[in-house]
């Protein structure tokens, strides 16, 4: 026969569990509200950016090596469509995206290659995501990613791809750290399922400055 004290203990455990679940749900709800506030605050601040020029240091750490490959260069953005990704080290390379085309050049081949985005839907999807990461339209990314607010000040967000998403095949998570003034990103860390990581540190960032039109021109160098 079950004693009254045993029934009491079981009831207590159930009550404690319900209370814990309620607290968790409450925390989740608060987090959701906090996250929504942070995202709209960020989008609001970053929507004011019309042009951007920033240096970057990209560190690629491949799981099979115990060393990093470091790439350095400059990124230019001119909303709504233009993005130029210029690498200076370890080789000179430029990639310029316009609304429908990507043009690439590198110093070793000194050739320009053009890719039509409308004819390469997979490429277009990747580029589309790239634009969203850099322009701060993070609510768009929530269709494909679950977002966790790691820190409010300075803001740090962790994006985990939803299981059915395209990114879930490759990416484990993307962590985006913002500058203290929340005007732009300070660092992006991409963790891949393979164990590789890529970090992008943005340095010497200038917002809303005139961009030299030559940045958008990709042409072979006359030697």
């Amino acid at each position, binding site marked *: 026969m079950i004693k009254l004290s045993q029934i009491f203990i079981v009831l207590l455990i159930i009550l404690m569990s319900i209370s814990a679940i309620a607290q968790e749900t409450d925390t989740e709800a608060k987090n959701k509200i906090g996250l929504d506030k942070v995202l709209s605050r960020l989008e609001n601040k970053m929507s004011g950016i019309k042009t951007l020029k920033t240096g970057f240091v*990209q560190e*690629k750490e*491949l799981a*099979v*090596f115990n*060393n990093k*490959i470091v*790439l350095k260069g400059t990124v230019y953005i001119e909303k709504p469509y233009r993005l130029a*990704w210029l*690498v200076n080290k*370890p*080789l000179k*390379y430029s*990639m310029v995206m316009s609304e429908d085309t990507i043009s690439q050049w*590198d110093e*070793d*081949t000194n*050739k320009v290659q053009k890719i039509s985005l409308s004819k390469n839907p997979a490429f277009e999807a990747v580029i589309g995501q790239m634009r969203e990461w850099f322009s701060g339209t993070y609510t768009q990314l929530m269709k494909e990613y679950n977002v966790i607010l790691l820190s409010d000040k300075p803001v740090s967000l962790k994006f985990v791809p939803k299981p059915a998403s395209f990114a879930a095949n490759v990416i484990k998570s993307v962590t985006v750290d913002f500058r203290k003034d929340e005007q732009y990103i300070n660092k992006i860390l991409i963790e891949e399922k*393979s164990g*590789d990581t*890529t970090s992008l540190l943005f340095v010497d960032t200038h917002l809303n400055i005139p961009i030299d039109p030559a940045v958008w021109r990709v042409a072979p160098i006359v030697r």
Partner: protein
Amino acid sequence: MLKYFFAITGIILLCLNGCSAIPFKKAIPVSVENVDPEIVKEQFALKMADKFQIINTIVFEYKGQTLSFIGYSDVDTKEKIFTVAGINPVGVKLFELMGEKDKTVLKFAIEDFTKKGNFTEAVGGDIRKIFFDRLPETGAKVYKKKNEIVFTQNEGDSIIEYVFAGQDNLLVEKRCLVDNKTVWSVNYYEYTNKNGKLHPLGIILNNFKYGYRLILRLKEVRS
């Protein structure tokens, strides 16, 4: 008149086959009349690194198409093991493979690379041609040209030739001949001293059988 026609046609054909631009300085021709081939071999062995990690930029040329990428190689020439990875200039991993003696294992490759032919064996084979067996075996035959010392040895149905030349009599070419035709060659240019060992700043692999060329430019040595 006819002999001029044949001479001009011959020159054009020679250029189409072998006059692709070489973006490196060739070794300065120096007479080898008084040079002892065995000493050349011994000294070169002492100057070469057995184990190294290097970063190259690599251009793959095939049928007028070019692909440029960054290569990270971890090579142990004594144990004959290697790990190589290729990333594009934006930092996206293209492939990753490991080799041990005659076996090569593909860890990762983008789909475009694995669609045609045996990508793993092709890359593994090229790595071995470029970095392994850069010294002729004991007992290799040797002959001298005006400015070159050539070691030659049989390997199955093929003959491997090692050409030493220049002011320091360093390895400038390794080639494989089958039925008196060169099926592949590796040329080494502009040796530089890094961490007390010599590394070529430029390497060109020509695969005449399959009609492609690889151009490697040394960017960094991490031993």
